[in-house]
């Protein structure tokens, strides 16, 4: 950004205007209406960001982050119109997962605590949404989600209180025990939670009628419904990321990072260790619950056997590969989660491994585990760290 020579910037609004005209008269008749409008909004938002950002970033960081989020959100929404229904669905699943990764990143990266319990917090959010929707079908979806997040935060508080006194492996052990005990807890209240079988939502999420007008007439309701669901998920994800970005930069976030790096110094400076640790737990639990709640809405059902230790380990792996304690890392992790199975399946079928063989079905595990080890050994800051180093290397040339 800072390398842009000043005179060039003046041509930007004119250039964007020309682009808008081209879009309106040349591109639009070949696309669906909704797409064209999204394109225009993206261009508009990008131009606002480009022109306003450098000055605003120092003075009003919150607005700068909001603009950046808006641009990313627009681009993603635009993308969903072009992708197939299956790819959109995977994107929604991955977006919800990235919310969970963000929460864990905050806990681990910002405050140094290791938690394996996130899949259980996801399960809490997922179950609460289903249980509430089954009994109170008229509550607006957003309210149901907020209730699920609140429950997740409450459980995070419950677990976070004992966690304040624990160090490293003991904390990991406690969260491990919690996630292993989650199926038993679920079965204990099986009359509410449906036990192992889980619950189904009474009606699936469907798109509102006005959406259909933006697409060609032969778009199926299945595709429309998927696009709507994916877009809603992406919007909620964007909001969650925006809030987290502000939290990272806030005083509480800085205090967390100080605790991670040197807790004695933090105490000397006056940071309350137990309070900060509990806050980190609550935030990460709330985010995990949000991710789980979205999964229930996306799948239209909750299946408690999904939320096991294996999922917690997957979450940990994705966060490490993406980059611990970073926001782009959570996005990378979410994308990897969404599409890695497809990529791996494509890979095994092209390399000639029989699709029904043991090797093919275990390939995701082999790839994941190997990636985790290699990342930790050679690139401990994950993909984000590697990209940073690449950028620094290019800058130094």
């Amino acid at each position, binding site marked *: 950004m800072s390398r842009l020579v000043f005179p060039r910037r003046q041509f930007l*609004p004119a250039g*964007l*205007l020309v682009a*808008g*005209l081209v*879009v*309106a*008269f040349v591109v*639009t*008749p070949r696309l*669906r*209406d909704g797409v*064209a*409008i999204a394109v*225009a909004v993206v*261009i*508009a938002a990008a*131009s606002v960001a480009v*022109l*306003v950002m450098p000055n605003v970033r120092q003075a009003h960081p919150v607005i700068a982050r909001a603009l950046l989020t808006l641009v990313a959100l627009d681009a993603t929404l635009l993308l969903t119109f072009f992708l197939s*229904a299956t790819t959109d*669905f*995977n994107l929604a*699943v991955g977006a919800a997962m990235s919310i969970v990764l963000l929460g864990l990143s905050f806990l681990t990266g910002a405050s140094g605590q290791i938690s394996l319990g996130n899949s259980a917090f996801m399960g809490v959010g997922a179950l609460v949404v289903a249980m509430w929707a089954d009994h109170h079908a008229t509550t607006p979806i957003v309210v149901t989600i907020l209730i699920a997040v609140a429950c997740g935060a409450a459980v995070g508080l419950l677990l976070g209180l004992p966690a304040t006194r624990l160090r490293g492996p003991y904390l990991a052990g406690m969260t491990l025990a919690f996630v*292993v005990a989650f*199926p038993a807890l679920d*079965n204990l209240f*099986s009359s509410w939670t449906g*036990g*192992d*079988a*889980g619950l*189904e939502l009474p*009606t*699936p999420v*469907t798109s509102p009628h006005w959406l259909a007008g933006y697409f060609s*007439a*032969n778009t199926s*309701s*299945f595709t429309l*419904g998927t696009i709507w669901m994916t877009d809603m998920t992406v919007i909620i994800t964007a909001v969650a990321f925006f809030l987290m970005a502000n939290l990272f930069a806030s005083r509480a976030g800085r205090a967390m990072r100080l605790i991670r790096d040197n807790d004695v110094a933090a105490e000397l400076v006056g940071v309350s260790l137990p309070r900060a640790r509990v806050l980190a737990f609550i935030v990460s639990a709330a985010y995990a619950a949000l991710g789980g709640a979205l999964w229930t809405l*996306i*799948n*239209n*059902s909750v*299946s408690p*056997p*999904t939320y*096991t230790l*294996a*999922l917690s380990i997957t979450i940990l792996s994705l966060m490490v590969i993406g980059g611990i304690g970073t926001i782009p890392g959570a996005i990378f992790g979410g994308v990897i989660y969404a599409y*890695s*199975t497809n990529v*791996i399946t494509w890979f095994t079928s092209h390399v000639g491994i029989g699709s029904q063989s043991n090797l093919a*079905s*275990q*390939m*995701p*595990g082999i790839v*994941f585990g190997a990636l985790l080890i290699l990342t930790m050994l050679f690139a401990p800051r994950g993909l984000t760290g590697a990209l940073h180093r690449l950028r620094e290397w290019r800058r130094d040339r």
Partner: protein
Amino acid sequence: MNILRTRRVATLGASLLLCLALVSAGGTAVTAGAAPSVPGVTATQITIGATVPLTGIASFGYNEVAKAANAVFKYVNARGGVNGRKINYVLKDDCYGTPGFGCTGVPSTPTQTRALISIPVFATVGSLGTPTQDSVRTLLKANGVPQLFVNSGSLDWNDPTNYPGLFGWQTSYNEEGKIFAQYINATFPSANVCFLGQGDDFGTDGLAGLVDGGVTPTVTDLYSVTSLVLTNGANIEPYIANFQSSKCTVVVLDTIPGATDAALGAALALGYTPQWVISSVGSDPYTVFTPLAAKGLTTDPEIGAVSFSFLPTPGSSSPWIPWMYKVLEADPTDFPGFTSTSTLNGNMEYGIGWGVAFVEALKAAGRNFTRASFLQTLTSTTFSQTPALLPLQYTPSDHQGLNGGFLTKVISSTEVAPITGKIYVTNSLPGGPVTAATKFSTGIPSWLK
């Protein structure tokens, strides 16, 4: 500085508004595309799909069911298909809905079902599992995709008011329980009966049938599948020990084969020898004994157990048995090395049973059909020439499927035989009586031979 910034923002705002105005004026709706056709059906092919456990705790044995049905489809395809269309069967693995270390990366049932809907498939046929199929009912209904011949005996599939496209196939666990109850009351009149069932409809429906048929177990236990996976079956042992100390002489198991194995093994170690009464889906001798043999057992603890079936036993004289061998021998891809001396196990028969039913329904629907007309055909035709010993009949108000069967005894590690050969029918209504069947299937249709 402020004036400059205001000017910049103003320029921008103006260009933004102009863009939007031009875009809305310039946009035109794209015209509609091709005429609507039946999803999944072309002139030469019909595509159907299913989510089945190809990996995981329930996969051994159960992964043969859909493959056996597919063998039927391949056999029919080799003879020109049905009404000129070949059947393309797409299988997706959902690990019985129990993801874990053994099933890393396996997508959930809703994800796989969505993938099937996107293909698109005409219907899902033969998806397996009670909780797995419960979780996708509203998804399939909302997208108008029929959910046919669900491989499970739960009563959930019989809900025509809410789910007009949802159909079961096998005799329900409830009806099986009633028939078991009648046998137990007649043969072990004053025995202490204990019940172990899976912690979902499989267990609860079976128990309800048992109680309704007049047998109230002294001890009732339900096990969790996740716990079964985590403890490798060790979670079953305390239940069996409890049964032994409660002095039960008859134990009813509504369990999947993995749990049946755990129960039999636990009883063996405890020196406990009750009369076992095992549900049809969890008692196939080959499926039950093979893992036990792999652990070093030489005698099959299941011998002497009572079970239930609605398909002809391999030793019977039904003309379907040689036909099944013919079909499986013609499919070396999924059944390599299957010859006339191989064992025909219960999973294969089950798959062939509903595979034939689907093929016959497809034939009866005619060359030109829609989803609606196909469902209409299903509920107005009696299929009395399928491998099941009883005719298969659906009505607009009853989507359950078969409604009876006969009692069997496990006589070796590969075979069951009928106890009396008498076939019973009942229904799943409370108090529904168990009576002897009067209508039976009438052999193989000529066009299928």
